[in-house]
């Protein structure tokens, strides 16, 4: 077990792509860190630099109190679980698990003990003599986990280990990985593009965007206080509604609406007098009939387009503005003014229905229109 620390780590590939741009962070002993971000944002590159599979262009990576920049992957005391498992096809499951230990000169009976123990924990004892090709995807995944566990390394590195599994298995393995990591207490760095996986697994989330850290924090605070529109739209599903607004006479209105306190959207001035990007999560809208808007609140009139039931709740897709012909509201750029609103499963809204919602002041987020950064309140 060990801490991992990255200092201004950069990676520039031979082709000139700067995949990782000066990343610094400290990972505590036993912590479960999840690197999350869209495909191509440099997550794997960063992880692979920690593993030693990719050279570090500049900066320092330390595992424990040892700088590992020039140390072979085999000597870094890490174990990695790959997306496609990377099991040795010509070896039995037992040998797959034992291979890394044999090469390190671990005594035979100790290897046997560790392999049997991992097999018991992961419930793969029944197929220790099988070759990987005779296993299902879920079983291979377990073997890959087992290969990491038997090593008893200072850190586990996971690169999208669940993305080849079907949805049900993915949830099951997710829970299992978390339980295992907590019981072993091994420092872990886990890469995924799946925000739900990231939220559920992480002690701390690291949101990456274009090779740079966008935000670090525990899942709930990242969810509640996204540092930028990028994080806001990446974490949470459906994504946070982001509506560009202008400020006129101390009130926020849609950019397209001219009247102060506009007819379809009216919100507080969170931009210190200038326009900003207003953010509201789908679950933070309340029907105006239940809670009339106070002075700092947002009030919104929408026209329903689609109602999407997901079981426990439904999501209402709507465009901002009342029925344009009838109310005279001028919604010119309708494509930019769509919102998603969570409604109770029992709701039975019809397309074309005009509805009003409010969101309380403490549920509103404001972001700079040009930089996308969060505007502090």
């Amino acid at each position, binding site marked *: 077990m060990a801490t991992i620390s990255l200092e201004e780590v950069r990676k520039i590939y031979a082709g000139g792509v700067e995949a990782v741009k000066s990343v610094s962070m400290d990972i505590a002993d036993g912590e479960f860190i999840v690197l999350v971000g869209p495909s191509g944002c440099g997550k794997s590159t960063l992880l692979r630099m920690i593993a030693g599979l990719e050279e570090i262009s500049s900066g320092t990576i330390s595992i424990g109190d040892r700088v590992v920049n020039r140390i072979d992957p085999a000597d870094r005391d890490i*174990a*990695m679980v790959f*997306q496609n498992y990377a099991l040795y*096809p010509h070896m039995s499951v037992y040998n797959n698990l034992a291979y890394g230990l044999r*090469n390190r000169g671990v005594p035979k009976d100790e290897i046997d003990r560790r392999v049997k123990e991992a097999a018991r924990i992961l419930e793969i004892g029944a197929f220790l003599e099988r070759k990987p090709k005779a296993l299902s995807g879920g079983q291979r995944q377990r073997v890959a986990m087992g*290969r990491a566990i038997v090593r008893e390394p200072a850190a586990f590195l996971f690169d999208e280990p669940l993305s080849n599994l079907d949805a049900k298995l993915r949830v099951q393995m997710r829970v299992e990985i978390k339980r295992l990591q907590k019981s072993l207490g091994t420092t872990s760095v886990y890469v995924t593009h799946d925000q739900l996986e990231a939220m559920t697994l992480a002690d701390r989330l690291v949101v990456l965007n274009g090779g740079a850290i966008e935000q670090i924090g525990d899942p709930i605070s990242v969810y509640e206080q996204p540092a930028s529109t990028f994080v806001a739209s990446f974490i949470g599903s459906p994504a946070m509604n982001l509506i560009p607004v202008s400020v006129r006479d101390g009130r926020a209105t849609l950019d397209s609406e001219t009247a102060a306190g506009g007819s379809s959207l009216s919100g507080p001035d969170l931009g210190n007098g200038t326009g900003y990007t207003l953010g509201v999560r789908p679950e933070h809208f309340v029907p105006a009939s239940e809670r009339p808007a106070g002075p700092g609140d947002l009030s919104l009139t929408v026209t329903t387009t689609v109602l999407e039931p997901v079981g426990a709740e439904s999501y209402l897709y709507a465009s901002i503005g009342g029925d344009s012909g009838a109310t005279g509201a001028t919604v010119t750029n309708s494509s930019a003014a769509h919102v998603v609103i969570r409604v109770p499963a029992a709701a039975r809204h019809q397309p074309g229905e005009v509805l009003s919602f409010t969101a309380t002041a403490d549920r509103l987020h404001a972001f700079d229109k040009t930089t996308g950064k969060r505007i502090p309140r």
Partner: protein
Amino acid sequence: MKRAQFSSPLLPYFLLAPQLAIIFIFFYWPSAQAIQSSFYIEDPFGFGATFVGLENYTTVLGSSEYLRIAQFTLVFTLIVTFLSLSIALVLAVKADAVLTGASTYRSLLMWVYAIAPPVAGLMGIMFFDQHIGPLVDLAALFGWDMRVGVNYYDTAFAMVVIAVWKQIPYNFIFFLSGLQAIPKHLREAAAIDCRSELRRFWTVTLPMLAPTAFFLLIINMTYALFDTFGIIDVVTRNEPANNPLTLVYKVYLDGFRSNDLGGSSAQSVILMIVVLVLTMAQFRFIERRVHYG
């Protein structure tokens, strides 16, 4: 697998006919001819043939010259196969380390294989030429008076070198594509599990390469046994004298130079049996230990 439907039941046979005809005319028919004539002694002047039963076989197998040639063929085949496989493998491993999918480079190397064996033999013999051959000069530096075509061992040495030289590119291409087909993640997992590169090679890379190696083993043995005919012909300058020969060359000599069609046919049949046994043995004993991923 898609099941094809044919309107007439005869159509598939009709479509297969050209292929079957080729196999029959060029493979089975000559084989059958050889088997038949191996039981006859043919009059050298073409005045009919006499049935002699197994006499051709007993003569061949009882001949000390034949057994000596068989022995040389065995040694030659093993050495050529071993050297051309292992040298090609080493080269492929080195190339693989620096190559990331440059297929043009790979196909350029393949061109060497387009050189016909007699041409390779001719080019090779120039290296070993008594007057202008650089290899002869090189050997002379070490006090080795190399006399290809005169000294039995020097001739054998030249045959092996040229045969190996000719076969390396072919093996190299296959080994290289085999190496490049090994998934990157597998090598990386191995890099984490094992520090020693050499050990990784033996425990992960080579087993993954086994299907390719097995295929090449059969191809190379067949090559050394049969396809080196042209090389031997050129190296011995068509004057076998007491130079080393392989069994195939002996078949040709007895059949076409000495007009002993019966004895030559018996030798052909023996060779066919050898190849059959060899291939079956390889499939039986080696393939079982090969992992096909």
